[in-house]
């Protein structure tokens, strides 16, 4: 039986005069109904490109190869006209920037109703009724939040609720949320995440949550994938990945996140104040990636054999952690995972 969404060996490249720049290489992903998958990594690692490839909305020059299957149908081979029937209907997306994601000259009601009219062939009146119900559901109740409001009359968090209502309008099978809370105030972030989680559970959708915040993934997703320089470097059940953190990049990402500071003591053994550990170096330019593991130049564990060929994503073979895989020549051994905090402290959320 085919999975709901399956990406196999996805490669996206942008042709350049100096030779094609590979944005994504060999990305694999599988997702079932009701599942929540976190996609984590720094800016430019290919998270958003993966999402846009699934939507069929890659920038003009980009070329995608491999396969993206939705219930067995290869979306990369699907003509644009059919993709239009899938977008918004079966796969929907929530974007990072609620301030600019809505059309400033159209009412929020019209923007929600648009896909209902397009995909479900509802009349204007029916679509307006449905839009009202959606706004109520995402926490913008009438009559205060009328369908006739314009985006500029709402705050960032309220706008993101409208964007979510648009995405959910036709009851999609897959919802891709690309950094849905990054642009919002911290207090609003949790509300929006809660809302997304509730809606995913209620509607039985699959969720792909793209974020650079490991804490968000830990709270929300059963499975996660860590991406670096266009490749998946570690994947598995969230608790397995957090318990082990086999790839040095995953550890670096964790150490660099403010949440790690919350989870560990603010002062180290000698009583000095801890600083967040930035990962040294930069993400390599897609045109000039090192021949071996792309993380090797920044990696504390790198050895000569890391620089030969990019390591494939391979199962780590840890007992009871079947899905846990990492693309690393010298992964951290499992027992060392004990140094990484595993348990969620009470009230961390």
């Amino acid at each position, binding site marked *: 039986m085919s999975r709901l969404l399956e990406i196999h060996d996805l490669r996206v490249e942008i042709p350049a005069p100096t030779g094609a720049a590979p944005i994504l290489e060999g990305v694999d992903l599988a997702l079932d109904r009701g599942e929540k998958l976190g996609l984590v990594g720094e800016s430019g690692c290919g998270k958003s490109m993966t999402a846009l490839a699934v939507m069929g909305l890659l920038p003009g020059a980009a070329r995608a190869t491999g396969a993206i299957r939705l219930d067995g149908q290869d979306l990369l081979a699907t003509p644009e006209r059919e993709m239009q029937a899938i977008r918004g209907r079966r796969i929907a997306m929530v974007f990072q920037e609620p301030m600019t*994601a809505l059309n*400033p000259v159209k009412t929020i009601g019209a923007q929600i109703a648009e896909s209902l009219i397009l995909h479900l062939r509802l009349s204007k009146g029916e679509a307006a009724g449905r839009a009202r119900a959606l706004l109520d559901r995402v926490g913008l109740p009438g009559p205060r939040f009328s369908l006739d409001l314009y985006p500029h009359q709402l705050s960032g968090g309220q706008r993101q609720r409208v964007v979510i209502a648009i995405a959910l309008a036709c009851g999609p099978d897959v919802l891709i949320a690309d950094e849905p809370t990054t642009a919002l105030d911290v207090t609003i972030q949790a509300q929006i995440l809660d809302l997304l989680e509730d809606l995913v559970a209620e509607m039985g959708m699959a969720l792909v949550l793209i974020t650079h915040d490991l804490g968000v993934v830990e709270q929300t997703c059963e499975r996660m994938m860590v991406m670096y320089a266009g490749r998946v470097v570690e994947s598995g059940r969230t608790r397995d990945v957090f318990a082990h953190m086999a790839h040095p990049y995953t550890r670096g990402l964790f150490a660099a996140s403010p949440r790690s500071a919350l989870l560990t003591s603010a002062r180290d053994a000698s009583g000095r104040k801890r600083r967040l550990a930035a990962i040294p170096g930069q993400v390599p330019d897609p045109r000039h990636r090192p021949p071996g593991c792309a993380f090797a130049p920044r990696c504390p564990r790198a050895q000569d054999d890391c620089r030969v060929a990019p390591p494939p994503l391979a199962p780590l073979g840890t007992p009871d952690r079947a899905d846990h895989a990492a693309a690393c020549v010298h992964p951290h051994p499992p027992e060392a995972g004990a140094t990484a905090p595993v348990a969620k402290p009470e009230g961390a959320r």
Partner: protein
Amino acid sequence: MPRYFLGRTIALVLTAFAASLVVFVAMAVLPGDPAAIILGTGARPDTLAALRAEMGLDQPVVWRYLDWIGGFLVGDLGTSYTYSVPVADLVAQRAAVSLPLAVLALVLSTLIAIPVGVYAASRRGRAGDLATMGVAQVGVAVPNFWLGLMLVVLFSLTLGWLPASGFPGWEAGLLAGLEALVLPAFALALPQAAILARVTRSSVIETLGEDFIRTARAKGLSGEAALWRHAVPNALIPVVTIMGLQFSFLLAGTIIIENVFTLPGLGRLVFQAIAQRDLVTVQSLVTLLAVSVIVVNFVVDLAYAALDPRLSRGGAR
């Protein structure tokens, strides 16, 4: 909306008064006594004084301004020195040519420019874009009088479809009047359309890069639908500004085309009045044109409000 409207209206009235003051002061400090010009250099001083008194030129400047602007407000624009008819009648006669010409040219220019600009934007960097923008580049560079002459050569002299020049008056019938205005309107519209198409193109291209276009595509809208339903309404806001400027120009800046087609329009009236030192006519006419430009800008402001809810609706949360 009412607040925005009220604010714009107050601005309109104040600007119009300021314009009338500037025009009046400029005319008042101009060297040359209108009475002396009318009577010639050999006039006897007592005749001159009598005429000055009759024209009100012996009155204090402030009184003369109030007298003039008071008349202006009730539609009395003074009496032309050279034609000895009320300036208001002259203006009405000429506006009956200039106003339809300006409207026709603006409509033509808009009907050509917006589809062309949107088309070029949607084909950015491809053959269709390069071809249309190449033509537009030429269109911007071509002087409208030359274009007018070429149109006359083609459509009047060669094909004989339309009159080459003159205006029969609206009494001759709507069709005859329109026929006389078609060629000058095209001659005015095409270079303006070229500019407007370029503005439209760049505005649409900018809008197509906005996040909300991606949102529209993610909903399942085709590229075409996202372009027309989401990009174009946003892209029109700067285009309307240019249209307002162009209409202001068309109202009075058409003197060359009026001469090419020997049309009795406002542009020629201004020119003749200045040449003949018909100061009252110049003063009233220039003020009237200034006011019409201000009114056009007012209409543009209202159009903004209609196009952009951020201006007309408060940001209440």
